[in-house]
């Protein structure tokens, strides 16, 4: 079985958003770039699955659509334990564009189990995984909180709105991972970091695709009015305010 993880290269989650060029571009000054947290959990789970020989996983590949500056993040994924990496050399303009690029690559490079994170920490579209599956006419399972392999069968647990379900799927399948799929993201060991330098990172030319959406500009949220402080021995007053001023209870 071959596993693919679609990675997004995103600003560290502690980043405060700032914009430049009349608020049309994200200010990348001093930004730490990381593997999108959900993608990192999916990668962790893939490595856990591979470590059990009974699962017969030949290979874990990570793929991204991005420019050269995404490579350190790809190397990090290789250091954690992916076997090889593919970078489709294009600026990721929207989810449709990204999914179409990956789908095109997969037509000649098939995989069995494809992971996506449930959303990316930048544009929060929750979209690439589902789009990819539709482009390839293969099943997708979303909000996945566990993946196991039993006798070559992929068993998936997903959240539905109001519960959980176990789903088995024909392969290939796109599993869209959320929290729970792995406990904690795996951290690269020194040996992994050394080995990552020698692992293949293939750069592929993009195909011509037109994005369906475009960002005009960004806005920062309005600052909130200051917090109204209530004395700790006067919680009654808080309840009164919630009831009569905010009218929320």
């Amino acid at each position, binding site marked *: 079985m071959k596993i693919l993880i679609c990675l997004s290269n995103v600003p560290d*989650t*502690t980043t405060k958003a700032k914009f430049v060029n009349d608020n049309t571009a994200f200010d990348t000054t001093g930004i730490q770039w990381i593997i999108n*947290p*959900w993608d990192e959990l999916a990668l962790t789970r893939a490595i856990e699955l591979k470590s059990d020989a009974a699962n017969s996983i030949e290979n874990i590949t990570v793929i991204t659509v991005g420019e050269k500056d995404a490579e350190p993040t790809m190397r990090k994924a290789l250091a954690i334990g992916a076997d090889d990496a593919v970078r489709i050399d294009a600026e990721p303009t*929207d989810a*449709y564009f990204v*999914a179409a690029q990956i789908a095109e690559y997969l037509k000649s490079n098939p995989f069995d189990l494809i992971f996506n994170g*449930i959303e990316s*920490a*930048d*544009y*929060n579209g*929750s*979209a*690439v*995984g*589902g789009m990819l*599956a*539709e*482009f390839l006419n293969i*099943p*997708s*399972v*979303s*909000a996945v909180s566990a993946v196991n392999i039993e006798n070559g069968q992929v068993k998936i647990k*997903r*959240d*539905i*709105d*109001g*519960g959980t*379900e176990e*789903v088995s*799927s024909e392969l290939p*399948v796109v599993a869209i991972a959320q*929290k*729970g799929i792995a406990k904690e993201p795996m951290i690269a060991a020194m040996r992994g970091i050394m080995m990552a330098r020698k692992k293949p990172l293939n750069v592929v030319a993009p195909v011509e695709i037109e*994005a*369906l*959406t*475009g*960002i*005009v*500009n*960004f*806005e*920062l*949220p309005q600052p909130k*009015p200051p*917090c109204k*402080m*209530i*004395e*700790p021995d006067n*919680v009654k007053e*808080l*309840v009164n305010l*919630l009831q009569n001023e*905010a009218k929320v*209870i």
Partner: protein
Amino acid sequence: MSVLVFTENWDGKFKKMSFELVSYASKIAEMLNIQTVALSIGDVQEDELKKLGNYAADKIISVNNDKLKNLDNQAYTSVIAQVAEKEGAKVVIIAHNNTGKALAPRLSVKLKAGLGAGVSKLPLSLDPFTIFKKVYSGKAYSNLVIKSDIKILTLAQNSFEFEENIKSPAIESFEPALSDDLFKTTVSNVQKQTGKILLIDAEIVVSGGRGMKSGDNWSPIEELADLLGAATACSRPVSDEGWRPHEEHTGQTGKIIAPNLYIAAGISGAIQHLAGISSSKCIVAINTDKDAPIFEAADYGIIGDTAKVLPDFIQAVKEMK
């Protein structure tokens, strides 16, 4: 031509979200001067379907087929696409919940329709079709243009003030073409959460952080939640420590919620936590540290120990009733 809205039911009943969706769709239909068509998949009785008319649906299409008992993303996408085609949908509205997030991207490819995910307002303009949405997990917003002929929007839960506008829509049943090769997944072992208010649906959420000191100290959180009809939640360190299940983790990498009232007890308010709760309409913070960032996001604050403040809070709510 129409605005098509995909509604969801649970055991044959619509949830509030479906009415929000229909109301939102009807406002866009009004802007475009076209009809609002609501699609329901599942076994829903006529009386219940009619309720969608209370939020200005002009027409209701009901698909009831045993093959669609469980959510298969590929099959559901095909059904929505068939209805979209039949009704000449210009805009498709879907919930930004687990089901919606699973279906909308597939539909985007199927209809070659640009996707605006997680909107909370009506489009800012129709030509170009411009929407306003959160990016960077709520740390910023963007104005996004959808360039395709058909547009898909997913609406964030509890974000749109919906209103009644009673119409008497025609109800039409529709038999979609469902070839076997659409069904590649099999569902087993369905576990429904019962008796508990779902975090994502809750109008009030009581949430605890590291300041609660131990998972054993959770009973005041639960008691307050019970009294207020609220769901319980927690910050990331709490779920990482295993004090509470990961389903309760609220924040950038956990659940993103927008209740009317969010009570943060012993949560300092790391930027990732705030990203998950900042859309709440009212935030109450209880923390011993007066410099905790949660107070910058909060509407009401108490500097104090949760071990003392929460029991007083419970008492005050009891007296209120």
